[in-house]
């Protein structure tokens, strides 16, 4: 390799390791991410053509703006970001590793001078005795010491939280782990949907594309219900009762699932996603002739007609789960012989309501039954645990990187003019101001100890 090639490689390496590239990646990712929140993603061509003129549409489409978070350029940017993370770590980790596993037990004088937290004292006594005292002192106040005897003097070394140095790298690694988890989920997982009518069963779910997936077991929807808060139309709960059978054997029996409580079986999770009516509702209408006790009940489907003895017909015209805030209600179309049809509203919660109408007949809504289908989302994501592992490491790494500092302390003992010169030096790899306060207190204790 020529020198020129070498220098280009070094430059390239430095480029991929540089903090400037990290900042560039982060800011570019931040700015470009905005696009997808302004342009609605993954809509149909027709939808976009309503918003943009054809030329703009073509341009945006060729830039993959309509699915930008999965576009080549956005993924490319994420890959660049990952390469940067990896290179930074490869460049810096060995030095940090060495610092943690093989600390500078005997730093040079110049290195010691460079640390700003230092204090010195000359004491009477012999070297061994002072050394023992200092070993106990540092152990009591800071951490156990390691002793190195040199021609130049005796060096005691102690440290705390040496693993704090790895906080940054744990954070960086965690981001890569999250990406790995996301890739596993994308490759081996799927997101599918299925609608099951009450009482019905399925053994397949369908992807958005319409492609069916065999579950390998059977899911039955025993029941679906929707409930509302008292006197309001605010939904309270959507609940499906599911039973799972595998090889003819019931493995999950009548397990209720609601919006925040899905059902997992065999790595596939079923979520309550939506619901709808399966067929028309059946209502029971009670009819009473005014002034008489005898009542007659009719069971009708929506649109169905019934005949009363005097020839009057009633039709179940409409039905709703919740009319204003009055609960379930039905609209009947009542037609007397030779007259125009009139509408009558009846409420399940207020059986006496129809009395006010002062008609020949008194109607009330006795019972209704609506068969529903439940809409389930079925998801398989084998990468999700990898993502949670990454997330945990991300938080732990951040906390370590921000709030734990690697603190080191040296005591240098030298014989000098019949006395022992004791020098205490301390340093912290981050949060210097807090360490200074700590060191000042330690200095006081140190002076007391040696006085």
């Amino acid at each position, binding site marked *: 390799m020529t020198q020129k090639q070498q220098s280009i490689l070094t430059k390239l390496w430095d480029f991929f390791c540089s903090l400037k590239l990290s900042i560039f990646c982060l800011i570019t990712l931040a700015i470009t991410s905005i696009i997808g929140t302004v342009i609605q993603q993954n809509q149909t061509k027709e939808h976009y053509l309503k918003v943009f003129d054809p030329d703009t549409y073509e341009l945006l489409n060729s830039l993959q703006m309509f699915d930008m978070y999965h576009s080549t350029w956005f993924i490319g940017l994420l890959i660049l970001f990952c390469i940067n993370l990896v290179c930074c770590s490869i460049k810096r980790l060995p030095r940090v590793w060495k610092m943690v596993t093989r600390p500078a037990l005997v730093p040079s004088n110049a290195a010691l001078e460079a640390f700003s937290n230092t204090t010195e004292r000359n004491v009477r006594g012999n070297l061994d005795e002072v050394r023992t005292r200092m070993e106990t002192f540092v152990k009591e106040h800071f951490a156990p010491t390691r002793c190195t005897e040199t021609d130049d003097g005796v060096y005691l070394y102690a440290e705390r939280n040496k693993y704090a140095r790895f906080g940054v790298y744990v954070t960086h690694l965690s981001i890569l782990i999250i990406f790995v988890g996301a890739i596993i989920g994308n490759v081996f997982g799927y997101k599918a949907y299925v609608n099951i009518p009450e009482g019905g069963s399925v053994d397949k779910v369908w992807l958005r594309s319409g492609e069916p997936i065999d579950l390998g077991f059977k899911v039955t929807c025993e029941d679906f219900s929707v409930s509302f808060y008292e006197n309001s139309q605010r939904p309270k709960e959507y609940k499906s009762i599911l039973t799972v059978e595998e090889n003819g054997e019931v493995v999950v029996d009548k397990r209720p699932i609601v919006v925040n409580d899905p059902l997992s079986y065999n790595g596939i999770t079923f979520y309550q996603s939506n619901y709808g009516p399966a067929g028309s509702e059946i209502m029971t209408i009670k009819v009473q002739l005014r002034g008489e006790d005898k009542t007659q009940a009719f069971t009708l489907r929506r649109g169905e007609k019934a005949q009363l003895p005097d020839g009057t017909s009633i039709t179940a015209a409409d039905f709703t789960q919740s009319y204003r805030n009055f609960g379930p209600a039905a609209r009947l179309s009542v037609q007397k012989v030779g007259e125009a049809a009139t509408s009558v509203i009846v409420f399940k919660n207020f059986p006496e309501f129809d009395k006010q109408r002062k008609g020949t007949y008194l109607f009330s809504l006795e019972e209704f039954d609506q068969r529903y289908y439940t809409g389930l989302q079925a998801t398989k994501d084998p990468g999700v645990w990898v993502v*949670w592992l990454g997330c945990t490491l991300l938080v732990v790494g*951040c906390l370590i990187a921000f709030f734990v500092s690697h603190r080191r302390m040296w005591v240098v003992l030298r014989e000098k003019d019949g006395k022992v010169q004791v020098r205490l030096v301390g340093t912290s790899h981050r949060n210097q101001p807090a360490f200074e306060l700590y060191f000042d207190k330690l200095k006081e204790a140190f002076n007391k100890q040696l006085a």
Partner: protein
Amino acid sequence: MTSGALFNLVTIGYFAAMVMFIGFLATRNFGVARIASWTAIAGFIVHTVGIGLRWYETYQIPGGEGYAPMSNLYESIVFFAWTILLIYILIEWRYNQKAVGAFVLPFAFLAMSWAQLSLDSTISPLVPALQSNWLTYHVITCFLGYAAFAVACGVSIMYLIKVRKEEKADDKAGGILSLFPSAKILDDMNYKAIMIGFPLLTLGIITGAAWANYAWGTYWSWDPKETWSLIVWFIYAAFLHARITRGWAGRRAAYLSIIGFVATVFCYLGVNLLLSGLHSYGG
């Protein structure tokens, strides 16, 4: 007494504290600053009681089963103001720099008066999607993070004002700016606030993802709210790296901190009010 009445008192309290902090800058009377601090603390205590009372009130409405009062825009804004005060009181206690109050209290006051004057404070029971313990974890972590960023933003504005003065080297002239902490301390406070905010935001995004996974079956769907929280995360991650890069520390870091908070506010309000998505509760 209702929680609404207490929150009105709180709003007045924060307004008084804000005016006194600004008065302190004008008069340089430390007595005023001390009263301002105590007013802010008193407001914070009433605020805490008010949130507790509203929590109790959620059990009292007909059909109410009780929930942590953080479920709609009104409740979240009130909680946001509370977290701003919490972080501010911590920072003031740590640094004892009174001038910062004049730049942080306005955020809390604006939030409270907006909530009290124009937001719907009706207590409504939770819709199915919100019935989850994740709601509490998610909201608390996010808003503590947001509040830390609000404090960082206030401090960054002070930094930019102060550093211009310091560079001109006419600090002897004194004036209001002499009450500001030095640019070095402001820079440090900015960093500390973001150091608190960043892990909280990270936790907020993660709890949000965990909740989404639990309720909707996807931990990440590039919904505008999710994306904007990630944008905010990118900006502060850039800030943290900028601070250790030559040429990016100081001014540029302060600008990043301000931009970060603007993005935070957009993530919080802009997304709900301007964009559509999964996260449109009570907006």
